């Protein structure tokens, strides 16, 4: 009798336990992060929401050739390359730092990229990543510009990168950007004399837009664009537009594209893109991304 009571006492519990286990198998796992909206750390010129994993070191070698419009004279711009060499390190899964040097205005730049929010499957719809960088123009010479101070070489960029992976194939990104060039280029009038005072504000705003569409397992087509929001009307600079493809091979991402920007660092392509697509002032370029 005692044994029976004891049995009855425990019986329902064991039933519940069975139920719970079954439930656990059936429920959909929540809080799944949606990863790899973009294959590379950049869409083309615009930073993507991808970060380096903790402890990963990346080497990025990027080239922008000269405009294709001169044809065989300089072999579609191949004779004049602009190179950027960049090292990236994943300090944490949410923090990536980089240091780079590029030939455009002999620029050094340092930057940080930090994840604020991940896109969650059936949850938070966007990935939000912050990006800040500081660039040093080492090309300006004291002999030419006697009043040059170190601060005059600097420019700063802050961007909020918001991306959404809509499907396995399609990801889009929007990037409100603020940048400040301590020294803006002179804008010339019709007699090629600088307009004084310079109509271009040093503090500038831009809206970056980008996306990728995977058309095969290892291939995707990428586009990015940045609309400058307070450019002086006399300015010769244009909005950068880039179109290209990504090829992913194990350990490498190879990005090939056409762009009207010769600069590769943020304040350079946002503020000083001089090429005009309609005049054939576009250049072939590539980013080679290698992880160690």
């Amino acid at each position: 009798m005692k044994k029976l009571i004891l049995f009855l006492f425990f019986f329902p519990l064991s039933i519940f336990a069975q139920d719970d286990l079954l439930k656990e198998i059936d429920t959909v796992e929540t809080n799944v992060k949606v990863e790899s909206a973009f294959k590379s750390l950049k869409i083309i010129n615009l930073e993507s929401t991808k970060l380096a994993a903790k402890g990963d070191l990346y080497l990025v070698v990027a080239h922008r050739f000269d405009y294709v419009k001169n044809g065989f004279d300089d072999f579609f711009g191949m004779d004049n390359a602009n190179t950027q060499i960049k090292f990236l390190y994943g300090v944490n899964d949410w923090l990536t730092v980089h240091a780079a040097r590029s030939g455009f205005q002999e620029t050094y730049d340092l930057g940080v990229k930090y994840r604020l929010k991940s896109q969650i499957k059936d949850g938070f719809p966007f990935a939000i990543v912050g990006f800040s960088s500081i660039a040093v123009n080492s090309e300006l010479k004291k002999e030419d510009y006697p009043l040059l101070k170190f601060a005059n070489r600097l420019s700063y960029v802050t961007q909020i990168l918001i991306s959404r992976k809509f499907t396995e194939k399609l990801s889009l990104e929007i990037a409100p950007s603020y940048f400040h060039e301590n020294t803006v280029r002179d804008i010339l009038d019709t007699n090629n004399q600088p307009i004084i005072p310079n109509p271009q504000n040093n503090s500038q705003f831009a809206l970056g837009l980008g996306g990728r569409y995977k058309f095969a397992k290892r291939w995707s087509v990428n586009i990015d664009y940045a609309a400058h929001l307070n450019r002086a009307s006399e300015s010769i600079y244009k909005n950068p537009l880039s179109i290209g493809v990504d090829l992913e091979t194990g350990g490498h991402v190879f990005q090939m594209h056409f762009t009207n920007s010769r600069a590769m660092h943020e304040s350079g392509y946002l503020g000083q893109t001089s090429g005009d697509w309609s005049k054939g002032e576009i250049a072939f370029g590539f980013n080679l991304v290698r992880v160690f």
Partner: protein
Amino acid sequence: MKKKSIKLSTVAFFSLLLYSCTNDSLSDLTTVDDIETATYTQNVKPIIDNNCIICHGSTPTNGAPMSLTTYTFVKQAVINRGLLDRISRAEGTSGAMPFGGPRLSQTNIDVIIQWNTDGLQE
């Protein structure tokens, strides 16, 4: 919590950097020197030597068509090859000189323009 404090300090670090902001344009960084009469040896040659003869040397390189090492060559270039126009164009536009490099400072360009107005003296 730790994560948050690192994030905050990163933001603080970058906002500190922003304090060293300046609002200049390139022409604000130059001084104007008053030259009575510009001559090649006194005023023009140093500018050409610093900026042009890397390519326009006695043996021109990188596709440069002519040399700019002597008074005669530079004078010829101003008269026949539109040197003033080429160095005046905006940086990054087609045909702008120095090729691929930064535009000369406006002061230097104005010196060469003055040399032309003063009669291209040696």
